[in-house]
Structure formats: structure tokens, C-alpha cells
């Protein structure tokens, strides 16, 4: 699942993303095989869905979130002084920064519509992510009843 997120990104960015994804997937598999908790089994067996959340979280932390923060900084400079931004010798195009801001908002809205907010996407520990997903899934089911 992670591969489609990596398309077009430079190796320096994709390598740690890929390694983290692989390590999380194998940790999840180890947990699934050795877990004696019956309440978790139903979730641990849905590895495909959890892998997707891992990939989404990794993409958010490595790519989307830094872009979002920079778009906010750009907007601050523009609001306060009407100025543009020159970063390490290169001018950042206002249209580019606007499209980055819009892409970040769309990503967050899409993830949020599946109950995956910033706080969940920022979690890095498998033993925190899966119980959090379980808790949210159960809250969603109770909310629907």
C-alpha cells in the first residue's frame, strides 16, 4: 500500500518511509500471531485496513504535515507584511503555496471523514495505533446504534 504514496518522491524521503512501513507491518504480524487477547483478534486480522492506516500516517508525518506548516508560515508573512518568501535562495511561488495549503486541507478532510484525525495520524507506535483504531471503531458503532 505504501508504494503508491512514494511515487515521484526522492529516495531520501521514501527510504525512511518505506522502512518504517515494513517494520510496522512485521510488528503487527508478530502481534497478531502471538496475541492472546480475544478482544483484539478481530482487528488484528484485518491487516489490510491497518496497513492502509500505517501508510496514511507515515505519508502525513513525512510529507503532508511539513508542507502544511510551511503554507501557514507563508500565509503569516503575507498577512503581516504583504511579502513573499525566499527559502534557501529560491522564491516560493504564492500560487504554489496556495495549492499546497489546499492539498493539505483536502488530505486532512478526507482522513478525518474516516475518523483519522491529526492525533491518530501522528502516532508512531503500533501498540498505540491499533488500540486507538479499535476504540474509535467501537465508538463509531455505538454512535450509530
Amino acid at each position: 500500500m505504501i508504494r503508491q504514496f512514494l511515487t515521484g518522491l526522492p529516495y531520501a524521503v521514501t527510504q525512511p518511509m518505506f522502512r518504517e512501513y515494513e517494520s510496522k507491518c512485521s510488528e503487527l504480524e508478530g502481534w497478531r500471531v502471538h496475541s492472546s487477547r480475544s478482544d483484539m483478534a478481530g482487528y488484528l486480522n484485518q491487516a489490510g485496513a491497518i496497513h492502509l492506516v500505517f501508510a496514511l500516517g507515515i505519508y502525513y508525518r513525512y510529507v503532508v504535515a511539513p508542507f502544511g506548516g510551511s503554507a501557514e508560515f507563508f500565509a503569516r508573512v503575507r498577512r503581516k507584511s504583504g511579502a513573499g518568501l525566499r527559502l534557501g535562495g529560491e522564491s516560493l511561488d504564492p500560487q504554489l503555496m496556495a495549492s499546497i495549503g489546499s492539498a493539505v486541507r483536502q488530505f486532512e478532510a478526507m482522513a478525518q471523514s474516516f475518523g483519522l484525525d491529526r492525533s491518530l495520524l501522528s502516532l508512531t507506535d503500533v501498540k498505540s495505533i491499533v488500540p486507538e483504531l479499535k476504540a474509535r471503531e467501537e465508538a463509531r458503532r455505538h454512535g450509530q446504534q
Partner: protein
Amino acid sequence: MASSRSPFKDNKVLEREIRAFLKRHQATFAQNAKRTSAFFELATYNSVVKFYEARGYAVVAKDLKGRDRKEFVYAMSPLALPSRCSYFLATMPYKTRPAREFEIRHNLRVQSAHDVSVFVSPDYAVVERGAVVEVSAPHNFGGLGAYCYAEARNLRTFAEAKHYQPSAEMLLNFVGLVNELMPVLMTGSIPGGYPVHCGPSIFISGVGSRHVERIKASLAQRYGINVFLGVFSRPNQLCSKSNYPNVKTVGSP
């Protein structure tokens, strides 16, 4: 509020929406991905500036460059001359005494408080207005180039940004910087005058384990420094009012 869609039940829909999102926006991200670390630094600089605004300072961008002075220049290296970079000026106005002014700089070289021949460049430094000095140092291009720095006595606070997973070693390395630049904090005597600044802070993108959380609490208690973890999920930890009680501050002499 719980969402109506689930990553488990609606897994295929989520996958489809991700594909559509990537088709629309991946090119934008891919073309600029080499700047990811720089963008993270910008985001953190933004947090520091927001802290000063939230605490009642008037903050304005200074030294804008380019045609019509319409560009804020953010340097990516401490080798850049401060005179060629922009910065924010934070002013605390008072009714009965002169206003206090501080420069919120990035990648500024700061002289060690222990040894005048040692310099370090924290990612962000808040110094007294006009504190940046320019000399010709023999070790810098044989004394031909300008060498700029601020003396440690003019440093009010500083911060570092790390786009990594936090570790015990990373946090403890930061204490080394505190010792070099603001050793008074190591003795537990935190300056208490007004106006206030955030304590020396390290912003880390990763969330961290319970062990890291314990180290964070211990360092805050011992030295009055801030460790902000998971800054993407909680970008306003430094400036949000609800988090004021958890933010360590230092005063101005």
C-alpha cells in the same frame, strides 16, 4: 464526534479516495519534496513567532529583501550572513518604561557562554535588538569574510527543530546546547523578570515513548526547558492558552 465512515468497514472507499487524492496532488508534493526538512523548519519558526504574539508582543517582519523589499528571506544555513536574512522583531510596549525589543532570528551563530572561541547555531534564537555583531575572524576565510554572531549574554532563548523520532540521546544532547548557551539554567536559577520568553525548546516531529515522556518531564523540572513532541498532531503546544501551564518560560534581565 465519531465519523460515519470507518477505515475497516469502508476500506475500499478509503483506498479509492487516497488514489484520487494522489492523482490530483502527488505531483505538487513530489516536486517540492526535497524541501521537506526546510518546510518543517519554517513550521517551527512559525510556532516560535506565534508564541510571542500570544504573549502580547507586537511582532513585525524586518529586513525584507528583493525588489520593493517584498520578500522574507529564510536562510537554510548558519553560513548565511544575518544582514542578508529577514527576521521578526518582537516588541513589548510598556506605559511607564521603555519598550523591550527582541529579534527572533533563525540559524544565527551564538557565542558560547563558557569560551569565546566556541560558537553554535541553534535553529532559532531570540536576542536583544541589535545584538548581532560582525567581525573579521582569522579562522573565517583568513579574516577576509565577515563573521557574525550574537554574544551569549544577549541571548534570551533559543529553539531547535528535529524532524525525527525522539530518543533519550536526542533530548540529552539538547541539554548540552543549554549548558553552552544559557548555563544559568543548569544551576536551577531561572531568570524571572518581564517580559517573558519561552524556555529553550526542542520541537520534535515524532511522538515518543513513555520513557521519552519521563525524560521530558524531568528536564522541564530540572532546567526549565521545553520538549515538544508530536508537533504535527499538536502544532500549537507552545502558543495555545490551554497549554500555558505546561510551557516553561524564562524572564528577561
